[in-house]
């Protein structure tokens, strides 16, 4: 058992990259759920998007997905850029109105 595990460790393949992305995903979930600062939540979302991207590109390298995975990763990056711009504009507006960016304090539907 032990030598085969060491051999598995010494040769990075598809599952290594998938496990790396799983760790990044769980760290992103942790940031989104436990932080009360809007910008920290946004950073957690970026982490989750990056882990999904690693998955796409690892599958594109190691399976028959070929370059379609790269394409999907490219579009994920584009949408993440648009999302970050709009989300930060919303955060600035909320800060202007509520004087805080703590998610628990921003609870009014009609400010």
């Amino acid at each position, binding site marked *: 058992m032990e030598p085969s595990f060491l051999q598995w460790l010494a040769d990075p393949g598809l599952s290594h990259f998938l496990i790396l992305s799983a760790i990044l995903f769980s760290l992103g979930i942790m940031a989104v759920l*436990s932080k009360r600062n809007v910008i920290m939540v946004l950073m957690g979302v970026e982490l989750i998007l*990056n882990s999904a991207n690693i998955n796409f590109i690892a599958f594109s390298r190691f399976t028959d997905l070929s370059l379609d995975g790269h394409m999907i990763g490219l579009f994920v990056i584009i949408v993440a850029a648009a999302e*970050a711009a709009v989300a930060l*504009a919303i955060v600035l507006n909320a800060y202007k109105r509520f004087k805080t960016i703590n998610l628990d304090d921003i609870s009014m539907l009609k400010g």
Partner: protein
Amino acid sequence: MEFTAILFYVFAILTIGSASIMVFSKNIVHSAFALMFTLIGVAAIYVLLYADFLAATQLLVYVGGILILILFGVMLTSQESAKLNFKTVTVNVVPASILSVTALVLLTYVFTTTQWASRNLETPQETVEILGTMLMSDYLLPFIIAGVLLLIAIIGSILMATRLNSKPTESN
């Protein structure tokens, strides 16, 4: 141990280590800078997967764009009564840890026990030319839609951000 394996582990440790610093740091500026090293590590992982164009795009868009936006957001929203406050509040630590560890265990179990239909690794080639051809043929419609989406996002965020200067009493 091959050179590629050593590189993979170096960059994986860089990525995961700085991501955990980002999540568990109390200071939001430290978190933002740790996020920068995470994104650089992810770009290096893309290079190891022979995705050269995507690695360059990751560096340009994430490290050069989104991270700067996030730092500006931190600076503009951290003032509390004329002094800066970079502390972040952490709540729900136990449920969040349980949920994320559950997600990690489940994902790792699925990823390691599935027999993926892998193929023989061919010699990699530059992806830029192929990606350009694909963008202009098979992916033409998503490409145009992404352009329209970016235009809408720019107009929307400019509108929302410039309404900051108007008085809050005169809505509409």
